[in-house]
């Protein structure tokens, strides 16, 4: 599964801005995520942006004060060449409908349809495609609303529920009450496949009621048997638990985890794709392998550089890059140290 975050889209747009015909003087975004791509393209081209409805109704355009735009006009119909933007083509229906709407309104401007991402099908609906992806693909901005979510394993804490489980021994009743009153951070519109949480089995009733109350649908909910409040909670324990759940669903294309460290550990333990949601970073087995190889390969040169730096010979060598490399090294070591530790823990549980 291919995944693109918002900053990936920004980079794709900056690299492909030159493909857009220079005569374009208005960007029209299709409501929803097309507005997101549209406003990014408009910022990068420095033209004005409108949404589809506003364009059809000829609503006045407004812009900020800080920037100098290329063109100044107040109504969208004054534009001569319009770029119709959507983020991706999946079925091609949205683009077709938008075009029909525009032609029904009797608009004669030149219209170029543009999408940032597209698969191999339905590409005839767009005149400009910035990047072709191999399906299935998911995006940061629509992940929680895409049907792909039905197959994924999703972590509840930090994604939907905003009360992190802390290690301190606390009043159980107070904890239950705070779960009951917690607000949902994101409500997915598709049922999630498998939900995983840090809260132990003893909280099953509370969590299930909370999910029901906020209309979060799912196929199954997995909770660790031990740990959590009044119990032992260690991140290593949690990672093993989550990896085991992920291993139980071999057909799941992605595990969505909120914290970056845990996501990395799960990817290491399972050898499958894990997305760290808060940092929008995807850990693939290939990526982890490549990182490890890079570390090992660059070890001699790093040692050499460090030594030469100690001798104050090379003024060009950046010292804080070295410090960063050391940090990664120490992290790796700590991972290595935690892995056998986990196994011991595992046996103990059995």
């Amino acid at each position: 599964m291919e995944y693109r975050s918002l900053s990936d889209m920004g980079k794709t747009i900056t690299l492909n801005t030159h493909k857009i015909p220079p005569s374009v003087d208005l960007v029209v975004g299709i409501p929803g995520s097309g507005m997101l791509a549209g406003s990014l393209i408009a910022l990068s081209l420095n033209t004005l942006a409108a949404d589809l409805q506003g364009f059809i109704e000829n609503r006045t355009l407004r812009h900020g004060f800080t920037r100098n735009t290329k063109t100044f006009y107040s109504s969208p119909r004054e534009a001569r060449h319009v770029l119709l933007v959507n983020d991706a083509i999946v079925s091609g229906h949205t683009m077709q409908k938008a075009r029909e709407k525009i032609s029904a309104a009797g608009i004669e401007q030149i219209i170029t349809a543009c999408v940032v991402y597209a698969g191999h099908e339905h590409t005839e609906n767009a005149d400009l495609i910035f990047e072709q992806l191999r399906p299935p693909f998911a995006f940061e901005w629509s992940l929680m609303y895409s049907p792909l979510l039905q197959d994924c394993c999703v972590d509840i804490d930090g994604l939907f529920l905003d009360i992190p489980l802390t290690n301190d021994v606390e009043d159980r009743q107070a904890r239950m009450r705070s779960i009951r009153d917690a607000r949902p951070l994101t409500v997915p519109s598709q049922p999630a496949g498998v939900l995983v949480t840090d809260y132990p089995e003893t909280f099953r009733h509370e969590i299930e009621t909370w999910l029901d109350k906020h209309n979060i649908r799912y196929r199954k909910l997995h909770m660790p048997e031990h740990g959590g409040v009044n119990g032992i909670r260690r991140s290593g324990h949690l990672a093993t638990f989550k990896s085991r759940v992920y291993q139980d669903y071999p057909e799941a294309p992605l595990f969505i985890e909120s914290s970056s460290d845990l996501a990395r550990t799960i990817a290491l333990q399972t050898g499958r794709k894990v997305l760290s949601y808060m940092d929008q970073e995807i850990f693939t087995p290939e990526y982890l392998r490549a990182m490890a190889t890079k570390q090992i390969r660059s070890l001699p040169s790093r040692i050499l550089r460090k030594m030469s730096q100690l001798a104050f010979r090379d003024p060009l060598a950046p010292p804080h890059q070295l410090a960063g490399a050391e940090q990664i090294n120490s992290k790796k070591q700590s991972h290595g140290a935690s892995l056998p530790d986990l196994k011991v823990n595992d046996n103990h549980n059995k």
Partner: protein
Amino acid sequence: MDYRSLDDLSRTILKNRHRVPQDVDLIVGIPRSGVFAANIMGLALNLPVTDLDGFVQNTALLLPYRIAIPSALTYPREAKHVLLVDDTIHSGKSMDHARELLKKVQVDQKITTCAVFANPKPKSLTRINILFDALPSPAVLEWNVLHRDKLEQFCVDIDGVLCRNPTRQEDDDGPEYRLFLENATPLTFPTYKVGYLVTSRLEKYRKDTEAWLQRYNVAYNELIMLDLPDKATRVRMNASSRFKACVYKGLPHSDLFIESERKEAHIISRLSGKAVLCYSSQTFFAPTWSPALVELKTRKMAGWLAKRGRRAIARFINTK
């Protein structure tokens, strides 16, 4: 000088989304870049989004198919609690303007104002209810770094920022390279006049470069090129980044260098002791400890001390 990329914006919104009041049922973005932040926020919180004009004129909300919350809103004015969003606040002018506009049309909804980044000064902080992250001025943002009037103080590289890099075959220091200089595909068009175009292209290609810049209407104050006989000498002397750093260091008012290559950006930042932005990877290199930075700071300090000393002496003489 500080910098925020698109990645920073979306991460800040994701990490702070719990601070948005729970009863907010509509997000309104202030054009233009505020609409963009509002869109990300709407996607993160699963709420309908509109822009300021749509809200004032009460045009029907087009709910994308994915909205799961059975939100009963079809018109923006039906909302009870509105979150007014802008991406950055420096002077607070656009926020004031938006508020005035809302006052004029007599909106009776509860309005909470929110900024993703703002200057942590009382002037701007009093204008907003929720601030996600403090961003001290001066700062630049990925989405408008090439479209601000400050560009007249910046140094900008040509290859990789304004036009694409030459391929290895094209970079032969001969006829192929001239052909590339003539027809290079432009990547970005800055809206304002660029202060200094600093490039490691050789001085002998000045005419071709100037012709290309004129063809694409790139306005600039100065074009600074490397004065070496040929490419081989440049490679042998490893002159590219040193040259850029040298030029950048010599321009006291210039406080940002926009460079295309990451490694080179880092070296320039170290050698000049000033901020460098790598445009292709959107990494910002703030000056860390380096001899150049120490030199810069010492000079500044010396200047300040001399000024104070001169003043003290003048005062001493006057009182006598």
